């Protein structure tokens, strides 16, 4: 029907590949989007070389937030943490392949915020507004 609800987004929303929790994990972080109550948690396992060996997401929310989390978790599996830290808004938009208005942009970026909260620690995390404007 339209670009926002591309097949990949509906598919990832309805049949996520990486939904779950990792216990034990090396990194775990979760956060909410207060605008709509979307919730995402991401758990990571990394090896000695600081490479992500396994990643899972859990939570609930709209198709954009959940599909974005599923795709992001897939993307970072096998990545070095130093590269994960470099991921930005543009990477998320490229991954989703859609144009987003200001409200839905935050749905898409929630998983990135959570990921950064995990791998940077709380202090360095941008707010969703800052991420959206980045």
């Amino acid at each position, binding site marked *: *029907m*339209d670009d*926002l*609800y591309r097949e990949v987004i*509906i598919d990832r929303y*309805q049949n996520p590949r990486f939904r779950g929790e990792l216990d034990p994990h090396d990194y775990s972080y979760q956060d909410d989007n207060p*605008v*709509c*109550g*979307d*919730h995402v948690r991401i758990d990571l396992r990394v090896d000695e070389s600081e490479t992500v060996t396994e990643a899972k997401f859990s939570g*609930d*929310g*709209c*198709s*954009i937030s*959940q599909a974005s989390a599923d795709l992001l978790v897939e993307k970072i599996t096998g990545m070095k943490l130093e590269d994960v830290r470099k991921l930005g808004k543009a990477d998320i938009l490229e991954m989703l392949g859609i144009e987003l208005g200001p409200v*839905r942009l935050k*749905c898409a970026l929630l998983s990135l915020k959570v990921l950064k909260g995990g791998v940077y620690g709380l202090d360095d995390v941008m707010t969703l507004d800052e991420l959206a404007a980045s």
Partner: protein
Amino acid sequence: MAASPKAGTLDVNKIRADFPILDVEVQPGVKLVYLDSGASSQKPVQVIEAMDRYYRHENSNIHRGVHTLAENATEAYEIARGKVAKFINAAKPREIVFTRNATEAVNLVAFSWGRANLKEGDLVVLTEMEHHANLVPWQMLAAEKGIRLEFIPVTEDGLLDMAALPDLLAQKPKLVGFTAMSNVLGTITPAAEIVRLAHEAGALALIDGAQSVPHMPTDVQALDVDFLVFSSHKMLGPTGLGVLYGKLALLEAMPPFLGGGDMIKRVELRSFTANEVPQKFEAGTPAIAEVIGLGAAVDYLNAVGMDAIAAHDHELTAYALERLEEVPGVRIFGPSADHKSSNASFTFEGAHPHDVAEILNRHGVATRAGHHCAMPLHNKFGIPSTTRASFYLYNTKQEIDQLVEALYKVKEIFG
């Protein structure tokens, strides 16, 4: 006020002509279907023009000025206060305090009355269906003063569990605060009965009328309620303005809220004497244009007739429930049409409310998705959020049909 037209006699086409925004195309070729009045109503030209006229011809600060504009502005501001008082049948215009919004009005009561009259261990009874505006100020007071909060439960079908009230009242609360119409479930609560029972138990009663005042006649003297809060922008008026009604004796006994200009009689370097009610609670320059706009909104509502508006909104709500029930996968929250008005909140199996609202928007249908500032209520029903369609005097059954048609498009996408 002229005699109200009977139910079903609202001339909606004539009303719609007064609301220029209803002609807006939200996308090329897609006309707005505005089903979000529960969040904020649209404004008729009469309100827009009243504010425009003020800024073009009367703009000036109120009170103390002796020049013509200041006198005219002060008069217009106070005339509007009188209109608002009459609209809810307050005994005196002085019982109307203008605030920034209904939220600030609750905060005013919690801050001023609450701090002066409540001590550790005192009980305030609220309900599980409150908007955050009538929860968080009391939670803040609980953290500060150690007061206790208890809640009238909500039943599975979205009504207040009145059977639980006697036990709560037996604990001798100091105040019972509740919504007269739920912003999520549309539930019309038995306000007069709750006020009466609260008084019998020695408690004051506060009504959150943010949803009820725009949609049904309100008579504070008949209700005998102690405090009523409501919001200008949900009743055809401008944003940035709320109203606190309080019984005069209570307002007079309460300490000031914010300090500053206008709320004083006398100021010395280390002390002040507070002004009289209501100025005591209106520190600083108020929202003058907005108050005048609200006065025009009240005129408009009176001309249409609150009885007729209540009947119209109820009829639309009943129709919406009937139509929504036909759509496979839709689950509606709240009581049957007999006990509710003005909105319908629902979930759609397999599609998140945010996605539902987004797809409805593609078809011009403006609804709201989220927790509607009532997270505890959504938790109670085990859902994070709902999609809410809300109705007002300018809406039609045809627009509800458009909502339902658009919901079938959601089904196509999310299967």
